[in-house]
């Protein structure tokens, strides 16, 4: 069962890398920010899976903190950084 958790964590990490490559060359800055939010959620899942795969229960606490604080970046982006319309060529 530990192997299954680690395998799914690996799959989610591969997912994350694909989204990272897409975020680096994404069309608009809002899409890149959505990618960053997806990183937060996927990272929470990976940390919870790693806790089951032998990293200990402390990893669950880290996942909890990450779930709380990943949203702050999104709010800061929507309220402060997203000023004007970003065109494709922007």
């Amino acid at each position, binding site marked *: *069962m530990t192997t*299954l*958790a680690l395998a*799914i964590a690996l*799959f*989610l990490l591969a*997912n994350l890398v*694909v*989204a990272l490559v*897409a975020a680096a060359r994404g069309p*608009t800055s*809002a*899409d890149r*920010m*959505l*990618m960053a*939010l*997806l990183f937060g*959620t*996927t990272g*929470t*899942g990976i940390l*919870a*899976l790693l*806790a*089951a795969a032998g990293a200990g*229960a402390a990893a*669950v*606490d880290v*996942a*909890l903190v990450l*779930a*709380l604080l*990943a*949203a702050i970046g*999104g*709010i800061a*982006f*929507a*309220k402060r950084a*997203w000023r*004007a*319309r970003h065109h494709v060529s922007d």
Partner: protein
Amino acid sequence: MSAIDWLSALLLVVGAAFFFAGTLGLLRFPDVYSRLHALAKADNLGLGCVLLGLALRADSLAVAMKLLLIWPLVLTASAGVGFAIARRAQTLGIRPWRQGDAP
């Protein structure tokens, strides 16, 4: 392996599939609003299934409860962020994609 183990493994796989679908939607959907929709799938269902599957096989009740506590937290946070980004997009005048538009 008991039935609980099988159920937990099934939930983990389903959660991973939802994460994959969310990533795919984020890559392929045409505008900000529909991409938010895809992101919510990964947030709510994918993470929910993974956390439920892990909580079923947790060592103690405290760890299981902590795992299940993450889920409503993520639901609230993603609802708030989704609302903020969608409203900001509307304020900036980004129009929703309609059928027939260029993607």
